[in-house]
């Protein structure tokens, strides 16, 4: 799933390990999130949104991801 984690982390001048420590996950989870290989749980998305002072909707690009998912289902 596409997220703005990398973009917001770099803007905040944080390392992946620092962000991982703040949201209590391993740095590999942050790496996977940034590579769009892993979709965060609702609670992790909320923790990340709180760190970056944004909303889950904005952080996880929910509108865009929903549109992409809808397109995928329409093509079935």
């Amino acid at each position: 799933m596409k997220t703005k984690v990398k973009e917001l982390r770099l803007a905040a001048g944080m390392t992946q390990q620092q962000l991982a420590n703040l949201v209590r996950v391993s740095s590999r989870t942050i790496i996977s999130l940034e590579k769009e290989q892993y979709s965060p749980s609702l609670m992790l998305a909320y923790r990340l949104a709180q760190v970056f002072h944004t909303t889950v909707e904005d952080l996880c690009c929910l509108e865009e991801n929903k549109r992409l998912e809808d397109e995928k289902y329409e093509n079935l």
Partner: protein
Amino acid sequence: MKIYNKKGFFSGVLWTAAGAFCLYRDIVDSADFLPQQIKSVVISLLCLAIGLTSLIRAFSKSSTREDRIEEMDERNRLVRLKTNSLTLNILGYLQLAGMIIGILGFAFTESEVYGFLFLFAGLSITVTAVISFIATVWYEKHL
């Protein structure tokens, strides 16, 4: 000194004890065959290193926190679930292959070995199916 990670501490004690015991045996009852002896000593030292690392980490607050985060990390849990699922699927195919080889082998050769292979594979498929059924019922009720 306070033990922060009891599980890590006990696993460390076990690995250290196993490593020390094997190393003692390698030195006292050493085999005459030198390459075998070297291989054995290397394995013992590896066990000892794993044990001592676990023991040291069990006494450290920050290392224990790291270990807990690694253990509870949602991606790690997903990786574990997917790994277990894939392992079970592969085992299922191997059991099925074992059963087919067993029944075909027994039909053509009438050898008891194939008979036992068929019985063992069939029994393990049955046990797996029963456990899977019970687990499904439990999760359907509790999730």
